[in-house]
């Protein structure tokens, strides 16, 4: 059987020695693990020594794509980075879009694995099959922002379409929330993959591909691709195209779900002009797309020319960074949000973790745990200029407070001591996305069990609450809820392995649609059952990785605040999560997953998924926290 789509080539780059090795990915590996997330999970399980320090040369960094980039399939130009996360000490993963995946695919790359640590700062140039490890000194990019690095390298190679994924000063200085930036506004944001690159002295990856992509069934694919493109500009993606994700600000706030004041509240008191519509009509200057994306969710807002401090700053707006750098820090100053976003993207810090860590810092400041002398200015909630300044201080580690907060809220809480941990709004070390979960019993479980820590993208369980699929204040039907979470989670594993964008998940009307696209491109005979089992397999394997690293049931719990401190206003006033109720829903989810009461996959489950090789290896080996 043919297997188009994949190049089936794996590149191993040893940064210690400079040795580059080419191996092949078997058909079985490709179809069992699909791409992206699946490849990352399998390689990390097979090759990463348990318990290692994620910032040591022992960590492995995997870059992977699926079979789709470079074709006309909407939102197919996506890549993933995988490693042991320095932020969580568990499974680390981050996915980004832009032009990287398609360039890399044309260069012939499918999966690249980095080992060791370069002696001096380097970047790697993938010029079709030619791979060069090049000292940063030559182009003078070490110490530069991710945006500047991109510009310098494009200039250096005299190629405006050169695809560059780079870390900024934050990643270089080993900020645990360091991200990887490409195409200016696209980030492999979460779990500190930029920090891992920094720890390897790896500044940037550049891709240029000139080879043509052929697929298994071009004629039929073209017709199906056209159909998907048509769907992708229909109602399923309207929200993302029109007012963008910020469209959710008002409705989520109306449900008491919009995190603000470091999640003390879910109903924001400064909603004036704080809507997707207002933003769109007043500040958005352009909507741009990743390669082969029809949606163009990248909505760019610009600070007006007459602004005294941040004139002309142009940032990519998303509900997540608006919440984290805005409402969660207690302000609704759009200009500060725009400026802070641009700083995060250029310095190379995950906007969600960065903003939520600033909010943590604000609460510690309020409680006297973080001293004014260490901050240098008034870091009170609502002080929008202080948010912008703190982002700079964190990205450059230029002040004592900035240095402490640069490693995210959990590490900062440990350093600050006292009861600071109470204010670290994270799961497994990863900061919360937008949702205040006091009154979201499904997403309380969904965000808790998420493999990479608090995250809205591992399972869409917030949708079960927001759309009223279950009583979001209740704890009934643990098995039905568990199945609801599992189903979306498995589907998202597929989406993150293929890799396509979740914003186009609605254009696939059935699992068959996914199989049709996969089969027309690869020539294989994927069916819905095999595909969903692959999703389940990938999820369980990443879970096994976490267990092997020492994760326990306690790591599946959201922060105490959601159980103990009810909001004081809005529809969730007086509401908290119920401990017993949560425990029963968590166990319901475990049961549906085929895991025991401690959340450990049973041998039977592992066998059913073809993960026999994990059996007997799930004992903790330490290395966590």
């Amino acid at each position, binding site marked *: 059987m043919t297997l188009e789509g994949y190049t089936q080539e794996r590149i191993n780059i040893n940064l210690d020695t400079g040795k580059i090795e080419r191996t092949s990915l078997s058909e079985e590996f490709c179809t069992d693990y699909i791409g992206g997330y699946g490849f990352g999970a399998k390689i990390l399980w097979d090759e990463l020594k348990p318990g290692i320090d994620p910032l040591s040369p022992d960590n492995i960094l995997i870059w992977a794509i699926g079979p789709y980039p470079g074709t006309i399939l909407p939102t197919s130009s996506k890549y993933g980075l995988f490693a042991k996360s320095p932020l969580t000490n568990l499974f680390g993963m981050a996915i980004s879009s832009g032009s990287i995946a398609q360039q890399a695919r044309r260069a012939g790359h499918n999966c690249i694995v980095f080992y060791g640590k370069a002696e001096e700062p380097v970047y790697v140039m993938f010029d079709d099959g030619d791979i060069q490890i090049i000292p940063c000194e030559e182009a003078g990019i070490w110490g530069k922002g991710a945006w500047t690095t991109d510009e310098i390298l494009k200039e250096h190679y005299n190629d405006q*379409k050169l695809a560059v994924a780079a870390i900024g000063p934050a990643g270089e200085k080993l900020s645990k929330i360091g991200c990887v930036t490409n195409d200016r506004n696209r980030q492999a944001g979460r779990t500190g993959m930029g920090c891992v690159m920094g720890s390897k002295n790896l500044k940037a990856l550049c891709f240029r591909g000139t*080879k*043509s992509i*052929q*697929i298994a069934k071009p004629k039929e694919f073209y017709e199906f691709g056209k159909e998907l493109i048509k769907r992708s500009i229909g109602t399923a993606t309207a929200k993302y195209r029109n007012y963008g994700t910020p469209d959710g600000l008002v409705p989520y706030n109306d449900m008491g779900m919009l995190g603000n004041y470091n999640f003390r509240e879910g109903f924001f008191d400064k909603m004036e002009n704080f809507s997707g519509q207002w933003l769109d009509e007043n500040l958005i*200057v352009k909507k*741009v*797309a990743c*390669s082969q994306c029809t949606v*163009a969710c990248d909505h760019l807002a610009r600070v007006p020319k007459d602004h005294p401090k941040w004139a002309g700053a142009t940032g990519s707006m998303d509900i997540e960074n608006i919440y984290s750098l805005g409402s969660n820090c207690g302000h609704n100053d759009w200009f500060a949000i725009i400026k802070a976003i641009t700083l995060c993207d250029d310095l190379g810090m995950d906007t969600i973790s960065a903003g939520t860590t600033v909010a943590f810092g604000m609460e510690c400041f309020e409680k006297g745990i973080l001293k004014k002398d260490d901050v240098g200015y008034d870091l009170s909630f609502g002080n929008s200029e202080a948010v912008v300044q703190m982002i700079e201080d964190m990205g450059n580690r230029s002040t004592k407070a900035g240095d402490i907060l640069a490693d995210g809220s959990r590490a900062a809480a440990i350093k600050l001591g006292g009861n600071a941990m109470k204010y670290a709004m994270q799961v497994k070390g990863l900061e919360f996305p937008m949702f205040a979960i006091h009154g979201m019993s499904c997403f309380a479980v969904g965000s808790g069990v998420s493999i990479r820590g608090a995250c809205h993208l591992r399972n869409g369980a917030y949708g079960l609450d927001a759309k009223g699929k279950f009583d979001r204040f209740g704890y009934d039907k643990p098995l039905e809820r568990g199945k609801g979470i599992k189903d979306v989670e498995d589907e998202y594993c597929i989406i993150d392995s293929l890799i396509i964008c979740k914003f186009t998940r609605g254009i696939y009307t059935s699992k068959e649609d996914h199989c049709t696209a996969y089969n027309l491109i690869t020539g294989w005979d994927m069916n819905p059952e095999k595909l969903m089992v692959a999703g389940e397999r990938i999820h369980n394997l990443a879970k096994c990785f976490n267990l092997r690293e020492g994760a326990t049931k306690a790591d599946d719990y959201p922060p105490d605040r959601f159980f103990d401190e009810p909001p004081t206003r809005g529809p969730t006033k007086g509401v908290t999560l119920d401990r017993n109720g949560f425990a029963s829903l968590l166990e319901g989810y475990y049961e549906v997953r085929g895991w025991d009461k401690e959340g450990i996959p049973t041998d039977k489950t592992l066998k059913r998924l073809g993960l026999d090789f994990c059996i007997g290896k799930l004992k903790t080996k330490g290395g966590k926290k």
Partner: protein
Amino acid sequence: MPRHEFIVVNPDKCIGCELCETVCSFVHEGVFNPLHARIKRVRIEPIVNIALSCQKCEDPDCVNACPQKALEKSKKDGSIKVDEDKCTGCAYCIRACPFGAIALSTISGKVLICDLCESTEYEEPQCLELCPREAISLENVDQIAGEKRMDAVKRLLTDLVSE
């Protein structure tokens, strides 16, 4: 002089997705590869996005520059026809084109110029059909000038127009 239609891309609508490039190479060459596209996306960060293809110049620099006389402007539709037997891939036309609208195929070694999909099995230019923002249209210079005039008058006589 007949008015010929050519591909016009509206930068206000263009999102820079490169689908036009990908589709173009596929319908002409059967592969996905923007190097073989006869339309090219240009992005200047952060907000400029547009795609450029053959403008069907009345006195085309590319035709004048070709030392092999391999290019000819069609009287019928104004397109620049490439005589593949004569084209040596010297790329003088590429250097001459003020829009960077000509590509050199890495497969055939001949130059590629937008033919509005005439050489393909599709009736409509496929970039135009698949553009997700309807940013691409087929227009002639009179239509373009007409639109510009209409825009200008609307701007200049705002009060009258709105009444």
